[in-house]
């Protein structure tokens, strides 16, 4: 029996670029390069490993994002995923996390799934809540923030390292899993993988395909609003001293002056 895995991958602005907000207080995508969120590479990696251990598995990578988000799908396909779904619609501009999770959940249902795998958080919104939201909407168990994951006989198991304890978790499929960057280094696409990716199918769906009304998503349909965004003032230049044998004592003097000692 085939194991159907859907991996959610987000297209995000490069964190090393100059990220900022556009006039409508949404993410400005014009001036900074986008890429597959690095934390989602770990999700693709775990999907590939789980698929390797299954008799028969198919990996679909799914993104909700603008035209360029296709690049994120290509990267995931070149790592070894089988097919891709791109949800793209002008009315999606400015969608918040509640709306995004609605769109993702509908697309996952339409694609068909036994297992959904996500990253632990995107590198732009960094909310870390989409996997839990998907589990809520799909009505299946959430097995999230795993640093170790395995699937066997229709059961997913994993280790979740929390603030105060480390937990071993278990749930029956279908389920939503999210993995951390502790789950295992993601592979680089091989040349063969990159060539093969060019021939793999990328389906494009819009809101109508998912039976979602335009006013349920987008900036106007959002459940939350950003009223203002201000660049943090640059920190005023600090004092920098070169250690010539007294660096530690000079630093102690500074800390005492600030009442830390």
């Amino acid at each position, binding site marked *: 029996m085939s194991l159907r895995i859907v991996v959610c991958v987000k297209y995000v602005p490069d964190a090393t670029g100059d990220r900022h907000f556009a006039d409508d207080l949404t993410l400005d995508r014009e001036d900074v390069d986008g890429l597959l969120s690095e934390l989602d590479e770990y999700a693709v990696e775990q999907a590939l490993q789980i698929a390797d251990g299954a008799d028969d598995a198919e990996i679909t990578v799914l993104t909700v994002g603008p035209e360029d988000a296709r690049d994120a799908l290509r990267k995931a396909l070149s790592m070894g995923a089988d097919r891709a779904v791109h949800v793209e619609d002008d009315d999606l501009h400015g969608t918040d996390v509640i709306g995004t999770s609605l769109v993702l959940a509908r697309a996952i249902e339409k694609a068909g799934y036994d297992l959904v795998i996500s990253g632990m958080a995107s590198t732009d919104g960094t909310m870390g809540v989409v996997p839990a939201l998907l589990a809520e909407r799909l009505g299946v168990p959430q097995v999230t923030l795993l640093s170790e994951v395995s699937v066997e006989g229709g059961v997913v198991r994993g280790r979740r390292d929390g603030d105060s304890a480390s937990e071993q978790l278990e749930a029956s499929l279908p389920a939503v899993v999210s993995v951390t960057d502790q789950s295992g280094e993601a592979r680089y696409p091989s040349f063969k993988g990159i060539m093969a990716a060019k021939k793999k199918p990328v389906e494009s769906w819009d809101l109508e395909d998912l039976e979602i009304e335009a006013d349920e998503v987008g900036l106007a349909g959002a459940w*939350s609003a950003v009223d203002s965004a201000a660049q943090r003032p640059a920190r005023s230049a600090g004092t920098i001293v070169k250690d010539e044998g007294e660096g530690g004592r000079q630093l102690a003097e500074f800390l005492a002056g600030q009442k830390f*000692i």
Partner: protein
Amino acid sequence: MAEVLVYVDHVDGAVRKPTLELLTLARRVGEPVALALGAGAAETASVLAEHGAVKVLTADAPEFADYLVVPKVDALQAAVEAVSPVAVLVPSSAEGKEIAARLAVRIGSGIVTDAVDLEAGEQGPVATQSAFAASFTTKSRVTRGVPVITVKPNSAPVEAAPAAGVVETLPVGFSAQATGTKVLSRTPRESTGRPELTEAAIVVSGGRGVNGAENFAIIEALADSLGAAVGASRAAVDAGWYPHSNQVGQTGKSVSPQLYIASGISGAIQHRAGMQTSKTIVAINKDAEAPIFDLVDYGVVGDLFQVVPQLTDEVNTRKA
């Protein structure tokens, strides 16, 4: 006055500091009603009352410990229905955010996560968030439903504000999903005796420059002289020199202490994402060009193996 529901983070009845900070923020938008779940829930009441809770709702059942997240969402939803609050505040822990998010969908509300401040506004509570590795500050609101807001540690002072703190047991019916994810075992993290990283007033961190697990003793000695928590960069964690639970940054803990001391850390964007909001930043690095120096209030260009022990000695001498 309108009621505000505050989700209590506690360990066997010991309330964690971020929850007390939430009570300070909650009083700006209404009267705090606290919800404490699981073993020891009732024992949280007195400290919550001292910090402004007019009422403390409690519920205990094996489900809260034996299954992941959903039983707590069921309870929070029951509390929302019982109280009809004007907002729900939850600590921004990994679990707190998941609980808050699922609640938001259930009650048809929007959500704002990782607020670093909160104030009353004409159209409901306004949250301050810090975006793109703390290079932007935004003001956000929930525009539909009961605002669900998660708040980061160190976002407000803990203030005493004695209130009634009437304890009531909240009846909770569990949903079909509640038992979906079993917790097979739980290994509590061993206490180091140092302050909790996210709550500490001072954090002393080491990176790749520390060059070895055994050398972290230098970082720990400085931390102990200052009563600080110990942090680490991902490079140090990936090398196996320090536990992942101490990692500061995008995929580790985000900290906002009064003082952050980085030793042998270059200051990559993902590290900055977790510490840039610290009030005072100090760095020790032998490379004068290291990006961390762009952030510092005070920097020492030098070998940490010289500078850190000297600093530790000096702190200990001054304290003695």
